[in-house]
């Protein structure tokens, strides 16, 4: 009996393990601290700039009073750039819809090596610096003055940059094997390819198309690297105008102009958040799960 119990007891007294009271609590607190600090880091300047655009005198702060004067000034001076940005974004969206939606479908349904290669290539414009793409466009098309001075030149740059996002968003939705089975079902009922594409593929690819569209619009409105290199005094988009005002004018005007930018992008971002679209323009897995589970049906 003694030998058994003796062997169960530790040979020597164990060192007391040093345990901070609630190590997990400390870690959690640390995590919260970092998270909130990051949020503050990201949001506080935004709030500051909004305030700056609404105060009479930035150096004096809020005590100098609130005013809409800067907004009004910015609007009279720069409303052209706002409309131009919208125009460019809309045109970019149309082009990417017409080219990107079919391309996304093809790449999702073709499992050949060639389609992999094409997919790799189509992603390059966003993997490589926008500056390079802009220079490249200038090298080749800079000589065609009419084209180069027109809005179309900016649109071209935006399309090149945003097309991969549309393609990817649509491809993600079309890649599901469900769509393939639906197409086979439609084919078994006699529908030709074009009929299938219009009546079955497009309606069911709609979540991807919407996600891609939101991404394209947001990216186009905010695009600077390419646009700065390509713009002329007549084709100034909003970000280009922002760069001008930051450099040369009062901080209140720059801030008011930034408020305009926020107003333009806010609805798009809210829509993206609401639909569960993430930074790459794809619907997040959680949203997909939600819509999938809502289609579960009760037993008969």
């Amino acid at each position, binding site marked *: 009996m003694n030998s058994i119990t003796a062997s169960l007891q530790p040979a020597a007294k164990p060192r007391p393990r040093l345990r901070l009271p609630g190590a997990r609590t400390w870690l959690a607190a640390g995590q919260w601290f970092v998270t909130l600090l990051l949020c503050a880091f990201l949001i506080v300047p935004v709030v500051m700039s909004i305030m700056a655009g609404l105060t009479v005198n930035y150096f004096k702060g809020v005590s100098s009073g609130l005013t809409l004067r800067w907004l009004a000034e910015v609007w009279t001076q720069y409303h052209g750039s706002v409309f131009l940005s919208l125009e460019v974004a809309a045109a970019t969206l149309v082009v990417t819809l017409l080219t990107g939606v079919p391309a996304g479908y093809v790449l999702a349904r073709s499992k050949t090596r060639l389609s992999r290669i094409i997919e790799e290539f189509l992603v390059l414009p966003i993997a490589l610096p926008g500056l390079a793409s802009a220079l490249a466009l200038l090298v080749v098309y800079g000589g065609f003055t009419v084209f180069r001075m027109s809005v179309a030149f900016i649109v071209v740059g935006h399309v090149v940059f945003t097309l991969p996002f549309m393609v990817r968003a649509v491809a993600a939705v079309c890649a599901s094997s469900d769509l393939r089975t639906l197409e086979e079902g439609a084919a*078994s*009922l006699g529908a030709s390819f074009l009929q299938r594409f219009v009546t079955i593929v497009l309606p*069911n690819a709609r979540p991807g198309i919407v996600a891609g569209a939101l991404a394209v619009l947001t990216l186009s409105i905010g695009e600077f690297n390419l646009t700065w290199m390509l713009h002329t005094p007549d084709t100034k988009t909003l970000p280009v105008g922002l760069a001008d005002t930051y450099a040369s004018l009062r901080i209140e005007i720059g801030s008011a102009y930034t408020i305009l930018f926020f107003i333009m992008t806010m609805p798009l971002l809210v829509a993206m958040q609401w639909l569960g679209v993430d930074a790459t323009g794809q619907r997040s897995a959680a949203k997909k799960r939600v819509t999938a589970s809502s289609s579960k049906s009760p037993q008969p």
Partner: protein
Amino acid sequence: MKLASVPAAVPIALTQCAKTFRGTRVLEPLDLHIGAGETLVLLGPSGCGKTTTLRMIAGLETPDAGGRIAFGADDVTALPIEKRQVGMVFQSYALFPNLTVRGNIGYGLKIRRVPAETVRQRVDELLGMMRLTAHADKPIDQLSGGQRQRVALARALAVQPRVLLLDEPLTALDARLRDALRSQMNTLLRELGITTVYVTHDQAEAMELGDRIVVMSAGRIEQIGSPREIYYRPANRTVAQFVGTINRLAGERRDGMLTTTGGAVPLPAGSTHASPAHEIFFRPEDAYLADPAHAQLRGHIESTAFLGERTRLTVGGAAPDALLIDVAGRVELARGTPVGISIAQDALIALS
């Protein structure tokens, strides 16, 4: 309830149809004749080629060079599925989420530019036949599994297909529902009278629904026959083991009897004289318990499994392999009890 204006049923003929995917032969060249109005079941485990065969008949796959498929007098080998006029029910049903039940059922007719009024009439007819009228305008994600299955069937039938193809249509449903729908499906197929090819891995479905069953394995046809033929006279071991349960008696031939560990049974007529060692097979329900003194085989109970309507006994010592014997429910035997087994003479099966 018969559908108005059902077209005459067509026979289907497959000649030397094989299929190779990426260098792997998934289907050996096969010949198959399906009679007009017949329900043929393709039965086998996953990977046996049954779905590939179905998809070839549908037109979603083309057979390798040399294969021919004919619907009646028409050679359809070169026709894509859109032109073959088949009705297909997919395993996942493939209902269009962007259309209502009515929209789904009428899809094939709309494609063919049938006038709207005619479409409405036909869809109503099918809705009534499938008892879906109350759900006509619902989106499909509000339907239960059984309802979706009926929509899929209605949609396939709406276009008055020459041939009906069903790819494991009941697999996606739970067991109870499957049993209930199986008999409804059977009644429906009999009434419709369309040539039907039905793919399943479930032998109960195959037995109940098929006029003939094609048992497939590893890309080949193992046997074609009626359900009874398949069950009572399996052509080989693969068929015997896939359809139902089979017991094996291994031993030596001697004087017209097979002598094994626990006794001897008479050899079935027509068994080959290949070698002294021999095997005979029988089904669990064809053996019965008998007095060990007079029974053909003697052994002892290894375990019992009470399955409700029957009890499955595992008997050891009667043959080199343990034998599974089914007896009626109300039997309780302890482990180790010595038992005797006798088997009906015509239930003994010889297999190659």
